[in-house]
């Protein structure tokens, strides 16, 4: 819809037309709107704890409570937690990662429907919204992760129950893959839901089910899950969750093949997501 037309007989800045080229992410334009991106991120973070007593502490309370429940439910009762590592650390890292992924996916997959009123009134690169959600979610993730980190240091130096290894230096990369995967899924789903609303129902409970197909409550090295191996590895989240736990706790499987699979999967997903997102954002306001 919009592209710089320098070659035209006159020097037009902007051309609006019916046909738009495929997959033209205007990086330059996104950069121009970077202040808006920062503003959205700030808004998401600030407004969450306005008029609350505990304020940002809520970011921490939630995963801690969930972890305790997981320890009791999956660790004690179901006996899914692995031997040799503190259950609390195991579930805390799982839940921190999972809640980042699921919340980001949930919120980015509603980009168009939830922001229709703004999108209907003013133009800015639509990708700004999901990007801001990814970033504000990441800030929250970092706060929660630092809590894990404190516990981890305790287990590492005081009780000496966890066994990290050198692979830990690659974790930022796999974290990035996780972020991009959530973004890719989110924008793909929101693009399709503008026309076919059914998908939004599927997503909200599909994400819940996905947790059980991801090593959140269990580890792949647990003998009880061995027989479903291949199917579980096909889930692109599996290898990343395993790699994290292996790097920090020394439990789980570090599988280079499936990590590569997840990375490639994510890149293809993200590309597809951006192409369809760009196609939809020009006309969705008429169909939403």
């Amino acid at each position: 819809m919009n592209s710089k037309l320098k070659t035209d007989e006159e020097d037009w800045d902007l051309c609006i037309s019916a046909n738009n080229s495929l997959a033209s992410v205007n990086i330059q334009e996104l950069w121009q709107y970077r202040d808006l991106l920062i503003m959205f991120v700030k808004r998401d973070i600030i407004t969450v704890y306005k008029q609350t007593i505990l304020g940002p502490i809520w970011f921490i309370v939630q995963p801690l409570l969930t972890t305790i429940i997981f320890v009791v439910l999956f660790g004690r009762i179901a006996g899914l937690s692995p031997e040799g590592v503190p259950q609390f650390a195991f579930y805390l890292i799982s839940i921190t990662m999972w809640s980042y992924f699921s919340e980001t996916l949930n919120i980015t997959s509603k980009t168009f429907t939830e922001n229709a009123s703004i999108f209907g009134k003013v133009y800015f690169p639509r990708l700004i919204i999901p990007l801001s959600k990814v970033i504000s979610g990441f800030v929250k993730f970092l706060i929660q992760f630092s809590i894990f980190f404190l516990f981890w240091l305790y287990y590492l130096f005081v009780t000496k129950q966890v066994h990290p290894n050198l692979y830990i230096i690659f974790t930022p990369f796999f974290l990035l893959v996780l972020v991009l995967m959530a973004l890719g899924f989110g924008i793909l789903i929101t693009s399709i839901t503008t026309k076919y609303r059914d998908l939004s129902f599927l997503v909200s409970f599909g994400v819940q089910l996905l947790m059980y197909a991801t090593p959140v409550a269990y580890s792949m090295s647990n003998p009880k899950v061995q027989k479903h191996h291949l199917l579980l590895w096909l889930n692109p989240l599996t290898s990343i969750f395993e790699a994290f736990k292996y790097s920090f706790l020394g439990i789980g499987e570090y599988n280079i093949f499936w990590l590569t699979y997840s990375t490639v999967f994510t890149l293809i997903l993200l590309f597809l997501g951006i192409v369809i997102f760009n196609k939809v954002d020009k006309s969705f306001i008429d169909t939403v």
Partner: protein
Amino acid sequence: MSKPVIKIDNVSKLYRLGQIGTGTLSHDLKRWWALSQGKQDPNEKIGVINDRTQKSKNDFAWALKDISFDIRQGDTLGIIGKNGAGKSTLLKILSRVTKPTKGNIKIKGRIASLLEVGTGFHPEMTGRENIFMNGAILGMSKKEIASKFDEIVDFAGIQQYVDTPVKRYSSGMYVRLAFAVAAHLESEILIVDEVLAVGDAEFQKKCLGKMNDVSHKEGRTVLFVSHNIYAISEICNVGVLLINGTLGYTGNIKDTIESYLNTNTSSGEVFVTSNKGIIWNEIKNREHLSDLKPDDDINFNLSFSSKNVSFDNVMLDFALYNENNENVIHSRSNWIGKKFIVSPNSDFEIKYKIKSPKLAPGKHYLTIYIYDSSGFPILHIDKIDACNINSKNYFGTSLYFDNVMSNTIPEFSIDYI
């Protein structure tokens, strides 16, 4: 003459009627099949022009059809038309909220559009935070907003409340703040859609003043949509008239408004309420009324009928309006001590004569009320096309006088003492 900054070329917009979401998959498949066979998109040919008075048999309608015109640097363009004529659709396409179905638009310079005030305001955030937020949504950088911050707060008149969450603002303060942000945008082209319908009279005046400054002093291009003909004629120098999604007229603002008012009345929408047995027929002496000088006497020969009802002592009330919808003459029969009688099943004519009213040139519209003896309205006819005052040879000097600012033009003299 300055160069065009916006070039609109054959722009059309197709909308789907009815429920979206039922059968879209089959529509998609149909379209895909037709296009892959090299045929025309089946959804396009069935679109008819957007006449809302008739129920369309088709699923699609053109909200805009083949619109082409240019806007030059520094112009203030007023876009007028009835509800549903396509004004907002055109603005939406220009502000890139939606894309046209056909055609293209070329734009030079940065566009800021104000289709709604306060887009993206978050109730939990303070005035200060929202100024930055809203400015950023409208395309300003943080630096630009910071440099204009004091001006914005000052214009909105909310110095005291800048650090209060906007959910505690009165609705007036909210709107003033929102408009202030938008009015201080630094863009070459400003698009404004009926936002002036908010705020008190003083603030509306301030807004109009600001828009005048923007266009005339700063030389920026402004596109303005409003139903307020007065505001349009004050601010704009050129106009575009849209009729059912097609281009009705484009040219200077005075002619555009005139042709808008013509389309308005020729459609014959006469609002008559009669439930008490008196029927409005017509104005008998149209010929006399179509060609008057300001100082002519105006005679209205008004024809009514009655059903099986009778009234004693009815009061007649006449109000004459000009093109700006201002009441210029109001008369009531009881002021001159007259009462009328309506006898059953009869036709009757009333002659309403105004002696040399010296009305300013232009079309005038008549509203008639008939009240019964207890003061209860028994007939109401709203603003029918009544008479046309021409300016010809009134002062014996020129055939045409321009820039009439008053509702009446008495004979006058200006001399040295």
